[in-house]
């Protein structure tokens, strides 16, 4: 018998502008000890299924059709208080953000013991013993001591372990895990996934793992269900879905996943997506506006070089200097970027890679060290006005497409701001023409100019952001995690766009990412950062085949194993199968 069966599930969100069907006619089965991955891009309705099962839909959402069975017993028509007893007791839940799924005002002991007492009807002493056992199982060291602590005293990974213990504490039949590792760093993600896999097998719990990440799917899932706009388009074993998908959407989704083993010229164009088209025109740089005044003084050395750069933040303020506590965000970092090169900077969160970018652009001031751009020491320039010519030559693309555009300005004004500020055009008409052309170059429609950012999707906003960065005719572009907030298919388009622009404008790029496969696709050379220090700099190919530093080896070992991934229709540049 299946642990969980969903038949013809349909979930509606009635609204003022008609009814939105978030989940449409979905049927799923979950066997004991099985991990079923539900994968899809944002808005596909994958989280809604999970919330629908445990009746946690946000109003006005409701399940209008379908049936849900938990071990053969129908649960979708139960009363509110009976459903509540099922939640936690027989269906455990793990959410994305471990920060918010624990009560910050209660110790771990209070939260776990109470839940166990309530669900399993044990006395306090037994419940406490069980709590300790559980924490031990999820890999928390010294549980008898740790259990007295509050959630904020745990790291993100440890907190997620506690959430898992909480989900497991009543010995549920089914666990619904909604993006359980998305908020965590890669090394912690790998540990948590291993743990989930082990626990499911041992306890014969069925798990529904909702994720957007193909890497997670490849690591732990037995079966995969692919969602697209509320519909289940394909379901099958993980090897089948990843290696030989049938549905065209799944095929294009798989082909858009950045892979660590093969380097592509371009990502194949993802079908079934309403996003912008690829720009058809190829730039002729000699006649185009973007190519004007590109003749810089001849440069012998590298375009950018950092020398012993240091930066620290005050983490505890005090009046007296000696009482202050600092965090060394960037510690003695030196590297160079040659003209026309794409240099990657990779590391986990908090490793200082974004701080390096902000030091180069002058958003932060370095404590010591030098930033040499085309031979000029930028840290020695004190007057803001004198920095302007260099600011024009280097631009930055930011991570979050939702906060990087001013929501109160029209696209025209957003893209025109750098042109107007640096006085790169003679007349209003010329500004308009240039902006129209830039918008065209990044693959957006011409009528976008008069619209506001909120009318665009995440990928389109990132294109606007790129257009703004190009508007100063820069020769050096910093991309700070430009695709980490985007879906895979959109990521592929944006990476293609950046590759094209880099080719056509012979841009020099600093590409920052936590995602090694993306780095592999984009960069010529890579620097690996860990807690503010630069561990290793090497050519991309060399780094992936023969890493020198222990930390690099560790990071590479954590990459998802994508060897089963279909190679159909890919435009390959190189492969390094000796990697695995």
């Amino acid at each position: 018998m299946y642990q969980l069966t969903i038949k013809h599930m349909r979930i509606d969100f009635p609204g003022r502008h008609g009814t939105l069907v978030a989940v449409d006619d979905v049927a799923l089965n979950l066997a004991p000890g099985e991990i079923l991955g539900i994968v899809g891009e944002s808005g596909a309705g994958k989280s809604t299924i999970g919330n629908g099962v445990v009746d946690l839909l946000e109003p006005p959402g409701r399940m209008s059709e379908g049936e849900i069975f938990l071990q053969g017993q129908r649960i979708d028509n139960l009363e509110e208080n009976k459903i509540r007893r099922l939640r936690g007791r027989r269906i455990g839940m793990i959410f994305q953000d471990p920060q918010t799924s624990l009560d910050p005002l209660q110790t771990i002991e209070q939260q776990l013991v109470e839940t166990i007492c309530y669900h399993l009807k044990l006395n306090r002493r037994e419940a406490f013993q069980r709590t300790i056992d559980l924490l031990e199982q999820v890999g928390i060291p010294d549980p008898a001591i740790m259990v007295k602590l509050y959630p904020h005293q745990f790291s993100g990974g440890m907190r997620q372990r506690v959430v898992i213990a909480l989900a497991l504490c009543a010995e549920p039949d089914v666990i619904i895990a909604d993006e359980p590792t998305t908020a965590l760093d890669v090394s912690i993600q790998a540990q948590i996934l291993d743990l989930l896999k082990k626990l499911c097998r041992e306890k014969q719990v069925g798990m529904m793992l909702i994720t957007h990440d193909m890497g997670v799917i490849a690591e732990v899932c037995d079966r995969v269900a692919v969602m697209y706009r509320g519909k289940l388009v394909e379901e099958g074993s993980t090897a089948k879905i990843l290696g030989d998908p049938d549905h065209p959407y799944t095929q294009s989704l798989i082909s858009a996943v950045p892979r660590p083993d093969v380097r592509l010229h371009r990502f194949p164009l993802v079908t079934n997506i309403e996003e912008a088209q690829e720009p058809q025109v190829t730039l002729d740089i000699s006649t185009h506006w973007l190519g004007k005044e590109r003749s810089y003084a001849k440069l012998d050395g590298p375009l950018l070089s950092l020398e012993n750069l240091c930066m620290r933040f005050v983490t505890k303020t005090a009046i007296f200097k000696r009482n202050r506590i600092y965090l060394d965000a960037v510690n003695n970092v030196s590297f160079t970027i040659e003209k026309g090169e794409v240099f990657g900077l990779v590391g986990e969160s908090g490793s200082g890679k974004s701080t390096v970018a902000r030091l180069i652009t002058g958003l932060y001031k370095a404590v010591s060290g030098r930033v040499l751009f085309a031979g000029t020491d930028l840290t020695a320039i004190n007057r803001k006005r004198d920095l302007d010519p260099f600011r024009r030559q280097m631009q930055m693309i930011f991570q979050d497409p939702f906060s990087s555009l001013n929501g109160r300005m029209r696209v025209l004004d957003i893209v025109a701001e750098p042109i107007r500020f640096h006085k790169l055009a003679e007349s209003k008409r010329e500004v308009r023409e240039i902006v129209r052309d830039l918008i065209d170059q990044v693959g957006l429609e011409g009528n976008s100019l008069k619209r506001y950012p909120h009318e665009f999707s995440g990928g389109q906003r990132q294109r606007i952001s790129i257009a703004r960065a190009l508007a100063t005719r820069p020769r050096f572009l910093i991309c700070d995690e430009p695709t980490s907030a985007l879906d895979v298919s959109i990521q592929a388009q944006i990476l293609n766009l950046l590759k094209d622009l880099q080719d056509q404008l012979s841009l020099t790029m600093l590409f920052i990412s936590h995602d090694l496969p993306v780095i592999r696709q984009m960069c010529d050379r890579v620097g690996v950062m860990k807690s503010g220090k630069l561990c290793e700099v090497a050519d991309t190919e060399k780094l992936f085949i023969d890493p020198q530093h222990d930390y690099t080896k560790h990071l590479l070992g954590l990459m998802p194993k994508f060897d089963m991934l279909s190679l159909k229709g890919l435009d390959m540049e190189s492969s390094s199968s000796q990697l695995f």
Partner: protein
Amino acid sequence: MKNTIARAADSDLWYSFRRSPIVMISAVITLVIVSTSLLAPWVAPHDPFNLVSIDLMDASLPPVWYADLGDSRFLLGTDDQGRDILSTILYGSRISLIIGMASVTFSLILGVALGLVSGYGGPKVDAFIMRIADIQLSFPAILIALLIDGVARSILPRDMHDQVAVYVLIFAIGISGWVQYARTVRGSTMVEKSKEYVQAAQVIGVRPIAILWRHILPNVMGPVLVIGAIHLAIAIITEATLSFLGVGLPPTTPSLGTLIRVGNDYLFSGEWWITIFPGIALVLLALSVNLLGDWLRDTLNPKIQ
């Protein structure tokens, strides 16, 4: 233009407006009071400030419906000098509204400017401005207004004081209300400052003043306008209170507060209409403006919903 109207009709604001009868009634009352009082010289039946038209023989007439004593020329009766109550209310609320709006504008500009500087300018400037705000908050607003009015009175000669009374009131009420705006704007400015679009502007090289004006100000104005709407009611009441206490406008150019004070003297001799009708007008105006402001705050603030 047509497009804008269609968009407005489809907006959430209009939707929630149409669903709340209280809000619609408040809007109608506010609209009626504001339009009639701003158009007072044209819609009022008499000109209470034109001495020629005033006849002492008409003094202290009760409202029309009151026994047989009423006079059909004076709908709500007359005061002790024979002035039409309805007309004085219209002229009075005109002055009250003008003072209210002007002082709200004054504190809004002052508060928003200080809030922007405080939120963007770094910890030292911030600490300085916010401590001033804290000090001011430890006094009741009416006390500050009284203080300023008193200082103005002692500095200016008596005959000049009546002429500038309006400006003194605007300044006094305005200066006592800027803290709210400054605190709100400071908070939102700090949030906006850390967003990437501001960093993008900094990378381009845009100067701080331009960043504040072009990027941050439009993004922090939403809550400010809501505070402004609620503050308008408070400003009108503050003005009425000051005038009632006799430190506001002189009886020759009466606001609602002055009318209530003057009428108050006659309350116990039976001429209740002189004070009650201006009172009702004040309550209606303040209440409906307040309700509108509360509704604006609730609909525009996603946290409360």
